[in-house]
């Protein structure tokens, strides 16, 4: 007989209160995690969507790509030695459309590579968000540091950097705009081992992301909130089951006296914990995934199935740990204590 289920059926309100709190906390966690992911995409999709590999910047740049200038000879040698390698630069800037409306963009230029858009001089390829704002192929755009004009050649999906749409431009145009001949970075797709290049410091994709100050600060805060919520839910489980167990000490004692195994009492508690958590998680997954679709345009929200499953597993594990810790009382309870306490 499943006494765990019988208790849930008889004490619906008590378990619904616990379930609703788990639901609220997990829903909030999913939403904040979706926002963290969304902001992360909005901040660095350009880098995040690259294959695993190594970024290189000048050792003197103190891990700040803006300060990095790679010697052209070093760059040439590196690109020749490694298949698929590309040198690139990123600079924040502005574009003016034909109506002189100014838009903030991240200018990106690179040597010829499959990983980045390669454009001819005078052409520009933009992130699709600018198309949604009204720009179209053939539009003429200008920049106050550039003597010529840019013609919009096309749009690409999900290319954002530092919360701004990326604008891919030709290297010669970039050099004119920023008065430099050197590139800031070299990217070498993963070829197994990490190549060492004299004078350059290497970073994995995630290490490079963390050198972007706004990215690391933003993600740290949001991830901290997510993990606080996960820990809070674990504590909630521990506290709720502790309180329920305190109320049931007498019952546990009597059950032990008549011969019920301690392990059976733990199974009863775990069954209840898994049942409540599973229902609460199912509801919050359904709602947060719906929010994925109904989130307002422009709201950086991205909750992937993988993140949802990972967080759900963490919730189940932390619920299990919380409930088990509170269940230590069950192990300690003496049948005699219960008998002397009177009616349960």
């Amino acid at each position: 007989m499943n006494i765990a289920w019988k208790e849930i059926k008889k004490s619906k309100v008590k378990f619904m209160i616990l379930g609703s709190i788990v639901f609220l906390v997990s829903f909030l966690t999913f939403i904040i995690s979706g926002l963290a992911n969304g902001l992360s995409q909005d901040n660095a999709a350009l880098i995040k969507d690259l294959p695993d590999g190594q970024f290189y910047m000048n050792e003197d740049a103190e891990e700040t790509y803006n300060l990095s200038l790679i010697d052209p000879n070093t760059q040439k040698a590196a690109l020749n030695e490694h298949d698929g390698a590309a040198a690139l630069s990123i600079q924040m800037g502005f574009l003016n459309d034909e109506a002189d409306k100014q838009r903030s963009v991240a200018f990106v230029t690179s040597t010829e590579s499959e990983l980045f858009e390669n454009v001819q001089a005078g052409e520009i390829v933009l992130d699709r968000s600018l198309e949604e704002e009204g720009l179209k192929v053939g539009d003429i755009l200008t920049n106050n540091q550039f003597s010529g004009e840019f013609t919009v050649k096309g749009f690409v999906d999900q290319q954002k950097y530092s919360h701004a749409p990326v604008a891919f431009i030709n290297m010669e145009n970039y050099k004119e705009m920023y008065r430099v001949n050197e590139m800031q970075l070299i990217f070498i797709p993963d070829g197994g081992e990490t190549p060492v290049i004299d004078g350059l410091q290497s970073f994995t994709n995630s290490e490079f992301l963390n050198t972007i100050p706004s990215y690391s600060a933003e993600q740290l805060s949001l991830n901290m909130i997510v993990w606080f919520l996960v820990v809070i839910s674990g504590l909630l489980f521990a506290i709720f089951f502790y309180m329920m167990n305190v109320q049931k000490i007498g019952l546990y004692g009597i059950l032990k006296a008549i011969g019920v195994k301690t392990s059976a009492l733990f199974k009863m508690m775990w069954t209840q914990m898994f049942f409540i958590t599973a229902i609460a998680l199912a509801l919050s997954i359904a709602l947060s995934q719906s929010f994925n679709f109904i989130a307002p345009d422009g709201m950086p929200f991205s909750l992937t199935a993988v993140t949802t499953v990972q967080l759900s597993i963490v919730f189940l594990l932390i619920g299990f740990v919380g409930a088990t810790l509170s269940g230590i009382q069950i192990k300690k309870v003496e049948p005699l204590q219960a008998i002397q306490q009177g009616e349960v």
Partner: protein
Amino acid sequence: MTIFTINELRKTFTTGEVAEEILKGIDLTLQQGEITALVGASGSGKSTLLTIAAGLQPASDGKILFNGRNMTSMNQEQIRKIRASDFGFVFQSAHLVPFLTVEEQLFLMLEVSETTLNKVQQKKEIADILKLIGMEHRKSAYPASLSGGERQRVAIARAIIHKPQMLFADEPTASLDSKRSKDVMELIRDLTKTLNITTLMVTHDEEMLAYADHIITMKDGLAE
């Protein structure tokens, strides 16, 4: 036939540096199918004796033989198995599981005792015992909706549904009025005689002694 023997049983409780001997060498023999009542003043050690005999707390010294097996040398799991399948308990309060119906309380006990009966046989067994205690019409009721007397009758049914060899009753009528006390004691006597169960019972109520085959008076940790 002797089913339960206690030899030189001692129990000492230690609080800080003070050790107090509650049981000072008890010898006791219980015959199958008989009801033995333990009486005595408060603090005489009768409840301690009952709970040690029932395997609910360990003795400090001495031997308890159940069916020839020495319980004092058994581990916790072995004692739990005996409690589950060979012992039945009735306490001052009914101590029913609040979220189980009367019928489910009995199912639970059969499950705990690892009965070999199949589901149909279990149902029949439960129906029979509910009839015996006059509670068949209340089989779907939860403890909260039962009267004190009804709860105690269900507790007795739970204590014997798995046909234990021993029944331990700690003041089973303490929370009942005189009429219900008599009903409950008659029920215990009738069921234990029918099922040949050996009963060790603690009581304060002199009227209940009429139902016992043997009376043992406890005084200052000794059986007189």
